[in-house]
């Protein structure tokens, strides 16, 4: 009896097998269980036949007795191996179902695919691929592709199958893991690209199918489980490189010729951008592979052109139609955006991915915070940041600043051969951010620091999977009274501390493996979402923290001490919170290691820093702000800061209400608040045995703690209080939330002020206007003496709350805020000032003169720390002692400062004769005091260590007011004049014959070496901080298909290109099964043949063949 239904069209399941494992049994079982009535199976076994045991064949035949097993001998890759089917299977009226050996089809999969093939009149059909281990986890439902060959996976990693992708639809490509192809189409297309061994053969095939006018459809009703662990099975293959190379090959060979030039340009630009972004996003390796692939196209141009010629005959549809099928824009960007919809959380030692809480709160909060900060800084943006405290104008030339950094001459103070601050280099390099408009730079730095700090708080608050909590942390940190306090008094170190403190905590917790805990884990009181990190990843994260510390320390060494303290507090509080000693230890190790890296990266400059340089000069005693002022961070000009005391309420509330990891972070926050708060209070009372950085720096971790505590309170209120029965928790939670609202209120006043309460007229700007310039009085120096809080540059401690600093002539600049190294000459200068203090002479000017000091400035009211309303009194006896000097003239005495002019001053570079020359040779101060130095004529005006100075000099003594340094070379008439110590500690040259002279500074070669070492260290840490993979081991042995995966090879070497058969086989191989002929296997014409004849338009070649 004839069947009443057409015979099912023949399907040949082609399985490429390569050293399978135990799971292969599932694959075989799945094929054996297929309910499709006309299914043959062909197993193409790759690898060394001597190695592949007979057990594999037996295993296959045991489950599928009718299966054909073909041993290829080598491993040419999936595509080339699968192409064997063209030779081994004859006829065109059937289908090839290509499968990986790690795919397990559902019993109805082949049938459903064939049905959908006919229903959709498709050329290629693929199933829904799900996880091998968890069938509820989606793997692929087809693939999207953009015009650059980038794959859009459509599904997200870890996406659960909720039937959201169960509609049949056209896709651009299907994974080769399992796809059903019309046999004739496969032959028409020439099979898989034989040059593509792994990765991309499916894309290329489907793309050619589209060019040929065939549909590619996913049939989600058909399901297959897929292990998809090629990278683990083939560790000898550089998958990243192959992916990029084959992607580029497909784009280069399948893009229409008219569009190719533009596409090539786009790809080059995209690759460059990818490199830049990859450096910071951890995808540098992919970007590097892309670059290699782009460059690698050039030597492959002949084979690519041949391939394009081969493909040209396939083009049946306009290119525009194919392009319409591709993703608009960038698939990578689309994928990234889609990834933002989910987030990875840490459960009890494992990662889980869950849908992100979608809320407008985050963008709205950021918009409000940014607008508020910009509004509060509007005066800075309109005009400039006033020169208050350490916030001095940036140097005019970043290139010159970079040159100064590279020089071994440190021009600060009296000048000395010493390493210069790394911050100069950093500042110079980041000037590109403001397009070298240095006037704008300071504004960017100040406003950017606030935003950076807020961003750090936001990132740190990422430990909370709650948008509300993160917004709270962001707003509270941005609204800290510390910000106006720091800016209004020009505390740049404290500003750096504010910007970096939350980042440090964030990076340390990240390096310790503490991530965002899974919200669902709160029920089990998960103390921390700790994820085990690989050593490589931990080193990377510590390196990132180290880089952050290095940059911070480059600008403000004081933060290093603060960071160490933060690491210790985090570790201790982690122990107190019972969050595990391992986590605590890692936090301590990561923090200390980051600090160590930060210090090392600033070598050799950091080695020159003393503790005094780090913490600054001491005050006479307690500043006497009081507990309330310190606690409310009222360290500058701000208003209603007392309301900020309300922010301390959440510290206790969070400890009381929070559970799970929220409690852990509440404890850490309390530790930061109370630990550093105690230090700040004790320092304010001058009750500490050691000197610490100024209070602004100490309060930065307090601010971080308050922000985290507020976030914990809000998070706890949302998760641990709401929904519970009414009790004491609800009112307490409300009080905590209300306290947060009250605490951030004072920031509104900063917004109203528009300039962070900075003074409109500052002492520094007045000084710049009043002190004569170099052009007027020649090269000279200015000495500041007074209360260290008012001296606008780092100063030397003279004791009893008095400090001094020496600066060059001209406006004060930002690069002068770094402590200059001190030496013997500085000690002598300090001793001179002490002589004046002791009233042992009334000719102090003559003692200051050799140092080139023409003006002595006593700062009184800087408008920030000291105001007209609340002036800081000048040190007792200071004005009197200097006023008592007969050769110091009271030049200016406005309210802001008192300036004495030194009438005995001589230029910093001068030719001395007569009594002045004799005084220069004297070694005793008592011999020099009161000496008549009027016979000093300026020479080499505008001397600069950057370049040689030339001029005529007469007989006499050339005095150079820098510490004795034989790196200064002085030539007269071409002959070098030996240097000697002048005035005891300075540099002098005795000129015995007049002539043309040059004075030049020879930079140290060791400085150059150090620069190279420092750059190398930064690069090393940067590489460690990036995700760039550095090959650490070579392949132990060569494998058979070594030449096939040779990245530079034109075609698989092991393939006989004339037959498409592996070379080993072309020579003949025993045990070959007879070719399968789908068309002859069954005598009767099948209904599929009929359908094919009716519905599928034959190609021109087919018609011709017919």
């Amino acid at each position, binding site marked *: 009896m004839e069947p009443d239904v057409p015979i099912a069209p023949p399907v040949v399941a082609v399985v490429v097998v390569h050293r399978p494992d135990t799971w292969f049994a599932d694959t075989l079982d799945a094929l054996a269980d297929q309910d499709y009535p006309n299914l043959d199976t062909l197993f193409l076994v790759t690898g060394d036949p001597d190695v592949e045991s007979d057990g594999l064949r037996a295993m296959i035949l045991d489950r599928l007795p009718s299966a054909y097993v073909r041993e290829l001998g080598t491993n040419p890759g999936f595509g080339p191996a699968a192409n064997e089917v063209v030779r081994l299977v004859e006829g065109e009226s059937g289908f090839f179902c290509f499968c990986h050996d790690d795919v397990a089809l559902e019993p109805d999969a082949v049938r459903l695919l064939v049905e959908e093939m006919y229903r959709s009149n498709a050329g290629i059909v693929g199933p829904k691929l799900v996880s091998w281990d968890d069938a509820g986890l989606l793997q692929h439902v087809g693939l999207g592709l953009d015009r650059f060959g980038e794959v859009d996976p459509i599904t997200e990693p870890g996406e659960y199958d909720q039937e959201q992708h169960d509609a049949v639809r056209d896709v651009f490509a299907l994974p080769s893991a399992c796809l059903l192809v019309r046999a004739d189409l496969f032959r028409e297309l020439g099979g898989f690209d034989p040059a593509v061994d792994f990765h991309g053969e499916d894309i290329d095939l489907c793309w050619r199918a589209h060019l040929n006018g065939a549909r590619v459809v996913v049939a989600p009703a058909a399901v297959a489980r897929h292990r998809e662990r090629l990278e683990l099975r083939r560790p000898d293959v550089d998958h990243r490189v192959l992916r990029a190379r084959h992607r580029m090959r497909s784009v280069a060979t399948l893009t229409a010729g008219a569009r190719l030039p533009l596409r090539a340009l786009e790809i080059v630009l995209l690759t460059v951008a990818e490199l830049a972004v990859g450096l910071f996003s951890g995808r540098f390796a992919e970007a590097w592979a892309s670059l290699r692939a782009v460059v690698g196209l050039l030597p492959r141009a002949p084979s690519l052109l041949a391939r394009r010629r081969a493909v040209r005959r396939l083009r049946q549809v306009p290119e525009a139609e194919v392009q319409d099928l591709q993703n608009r824009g960038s698939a990578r960007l689309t994928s990234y955006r889609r990834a933002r919809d989910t987030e990875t959380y840490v459960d009890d030692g494992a990662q889980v991915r869950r849908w992100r809480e979608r809320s407008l709160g985050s963008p709205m909060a950021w918009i409000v915070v940014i607008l508020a900060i910009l509004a509060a800084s509007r005066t800075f943006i309109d005009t400039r940041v006033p020169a208050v405290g350490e916030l001095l104008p940036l140097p005019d030339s970043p290139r010159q600043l970079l040159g100064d950094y590279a020089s071994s001459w440190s021009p600060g103070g009296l000048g000395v051969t010493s390493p210069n601050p790394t911050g100069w280099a950093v500042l110079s390099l980041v000037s590109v951010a403001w397009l070298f408009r240095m006037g704008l730079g300071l504004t960017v730095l100040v406003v950017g620091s606030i935003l950076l700090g807020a961003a750090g708080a936001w990132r740190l608050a990422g430990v909370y999977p709650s948008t509300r909590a993160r917004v709270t942390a962001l707003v509270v940190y941005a609204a800290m009274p510390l910000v106006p306090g720091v800016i209004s008094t020009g505390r740049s170190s404290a500003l750096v501390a504010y910007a970096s403190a939350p980042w440090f905590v964030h990076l340390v917790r990240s390096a310790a493996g503490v991530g965002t805990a899974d919200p669902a884990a709160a029920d089990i009181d998960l103390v921390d979402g700790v994820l085990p990190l690989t050593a490589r990843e931990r080193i990377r994260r510590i390196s990132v923290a180290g880089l952050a510390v290095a940059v911070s320390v480059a600008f403000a060494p004081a933060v290093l001490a603060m960071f160490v303290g933060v690491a210790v507090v985090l570790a201790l509080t982690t122990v107190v*919170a019972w969050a595990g000693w391992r986590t605590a230890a890692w936090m301590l190790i990561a923090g200390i290691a980051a600090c160590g890296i930060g210090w090392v990266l600033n070598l050799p400059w950091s080695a020159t820093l003393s503790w005094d340089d780090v913490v600054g000069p001491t005050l006479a005693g307690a500043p006497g702000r009081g507990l309330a002022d310190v606690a409310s961070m009222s360290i500058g000009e701000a208003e209603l800061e007392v309301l900020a005391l309300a922010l301390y309420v959440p510290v206790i509330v969070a400890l009381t209400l929070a559970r799970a990891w929220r409690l852990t972070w509440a404890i850490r926050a309390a530790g930061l608040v*109370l630990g550093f708060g105690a230090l700040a209070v004790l320092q304010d009372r001058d009750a500490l045995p050691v000197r610490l950085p100024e209070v602004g720096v100490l309060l930065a971790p307090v601010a971080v703690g308050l922000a985290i505590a507020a976030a914990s309170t809000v998070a706890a209120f949302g998760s641990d209080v709401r929904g519970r029965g009414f009790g004491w928790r609800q009112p307490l939670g409300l009080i905590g939330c209300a306290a947060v609202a009250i605490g951030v209120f004072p920031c509104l006043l900063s917004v109203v002020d528009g300039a962070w309460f900075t003074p409109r007229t500052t002492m520094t700007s007045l000084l710049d206007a009043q002190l004569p310039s170099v052009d007027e009085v020649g090269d000279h120096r200015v000495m500041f003496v007074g209360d260290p809080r008012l001296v606008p540059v780092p100063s030397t401690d003279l004791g009893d709350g008095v400090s001094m600093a020496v600066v060059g002539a001209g406006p004060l600049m930002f690069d002068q805020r770094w402590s200059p190294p001190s030496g013997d000459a500085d000690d002598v200068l300090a001793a001179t000032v002490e002589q004046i203090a002791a*009233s042992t002479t009334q000719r102090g000017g003559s003692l200051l003169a050799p140092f080139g000091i023409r003006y002595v400035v006593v700062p009184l009211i800087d408008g920030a720390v000291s105001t007209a309303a609340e002036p800081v009194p000048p040190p007792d006896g200071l004005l009197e002692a200097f006023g*008592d000097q007969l050769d110091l003239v009271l030049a200016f005495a406005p309210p802001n400062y008192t300036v004495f002019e030194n009438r005995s001053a001589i230029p910093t570079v001068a030719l001395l004769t007569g009594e002045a020359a004799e005084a220069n040779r004297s070694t005793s101060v008592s011999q020099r005091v009161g000496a008549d130095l009027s016979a000093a004529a300026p020479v080499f005006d505008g001397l600069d260590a950057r370049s040689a100075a030339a001029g005529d000099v007469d007989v006499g003594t050339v005095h150079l007011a820098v510490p004795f340094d034989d790196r200064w070379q002085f030539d007269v008439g071409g002959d070098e004049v030996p240097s000697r110590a002048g005035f005891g500690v300075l540099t002098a040259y005795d000129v015995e014959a007049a002539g043309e002279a040059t004075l030049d500074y020879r930079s140290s070669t060791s400085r150059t070496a150090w620069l190279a070492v420092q750059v190398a260290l930064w690069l090393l840490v940067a590489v460690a901080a990036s995700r760039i993979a550095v090959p650490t081991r070579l392949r132990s042995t060569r494998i058979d298909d070594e030449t096939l995966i040779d990245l530079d090879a034109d075609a698989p070497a092991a393939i006989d290109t004339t037959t498409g058969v592996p070379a080993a086989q072309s020579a003949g191989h025993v045990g070959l099964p007879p070719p399968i002929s789908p068309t002859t296997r069954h005598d009767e014409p099948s209904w599929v043949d009929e359908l094919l004849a009716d519905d599928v338009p034959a190609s021109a070649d087919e018609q011709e063949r017919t």
Partner: protein
Amino acid sequence: MIVRRIPALALSVTAIGGLVMAGRETATPTAAVFATPAATWMPSVPAPGGLTDTWYCPGVPASGDDGVGGEVIVANRDDRVLEARVTVFAEAEDQVTEELTVEGRTRAVVDLDELVTAPFVSAMVEIRGGGGVVEQRSVHPDGESVAACAGATSSTWYLADGSTVEGNVEEIVLTNPYESTAIVDVRLATADVTRQPTELQGFPVPARSVRTVDLSEVARDEEVLGVDVVASSGRIIVARAQHDVGGGRRGHSVALGSPALRDQWWFANGAKGVDVDERYSLYNPTDDDVEVVPVFLGIAPSAAAALTAQPPITVPANEVVTLATGELDALPDGPYSLVFGTQGPPSIVVERALTRTIDDRATTSILLGAPPRADGYVASTWHVGIGPQEPTTDALVVFNVDNTAATVEVRSVGPDGSEPVEGLEALSLPAAGRLSIDLTNRAAVGRELIVRSSSRIFVERALRREDGSQGRGASWAVPAE
């Protein structure tokens, strides 16, 4: 209840409590100290170790007239050679500078009126490496006077006893040794009124110059005239040149003012007698009345008790009160010592004008009282840079501040160094008593003298005037710091 929150809560609450307890009282800010300003005191010999010692002399007339002039004497008690620079200031701003070398154990004299001719000149002596004592002698036909030079400038100066009555001329000599102009305000006070002459407000004293102000032009016929000079800008030296021709006084003297008010003023060599007219002028430039108690010393206990029983002297604010000792019945004739004291803050300045009539000719000497240093220090060693030029009795009067008996030694600095003057090696000084020393030994003549005591003392110098004038000029020796 999650157990692990308990230790955290306990620690936090404890820490907060501790912080509140520790910070409940705001720490008092400590003032920064650059220098402890040298307490304004009477001219004194600085301690050794200075890089330079600068002496500011009050000024001498140098008009070029016969018999008018002045000199600066630099006494070197050390073995080493002193190198000094003498700068002579006059009204013109182009001062004269002269390098000076003083051999060891000698004295050098700089004749100022030979260097510069001007109504008044003053000298500034800078000694490199310190050491030495600098004093000046002012010479005038109506009398010469010796005064020590000041070791420091000041922005305030006070003078209590001046007179413009019956042709007396009181001039204040303002010396500005600095490179910038000083601006001063001069205020005058009499027994019943205070004046601030407009022309003397904001009065400029140009840099490195001397200005003189004749007070008789702005305050005529004043029996007693107190003066205070306040520099609103700069620091100066203020002296008074008093030329008395009437009012029962006669003489010419130049002396430093007081740079500060005090609560104690000592006089070692007071006198009451038939031919003596002694007047103490007490000036209170403050805005509060002051009660001053004079304590007479070195007199009979009964007389002292009677004087002590008298009510204190009230010195009204901004006024000058005089005390004529001749009117004190309880005070016996003869020499005595006297100290004026107040209970309040330093608020007065006291000067003594002592007129002796010898052979119907009055001779007046004016002496500013000697105060202890602000920290209470009173020296036990005093230097006499200018001693008698010929043997003189009662040349020095020593008063023992301490209430214990002491021993006094007078040494002279000669070619062989500092040696005790024969007969003056160990003089007994009664407790809280006075001692008059005769300098009749030739070894004590024409040399620098050093008076040392085992107790704290004040040493007043009574030098006989040169020929042409009579009587003695009163001045203090120079205490050692």
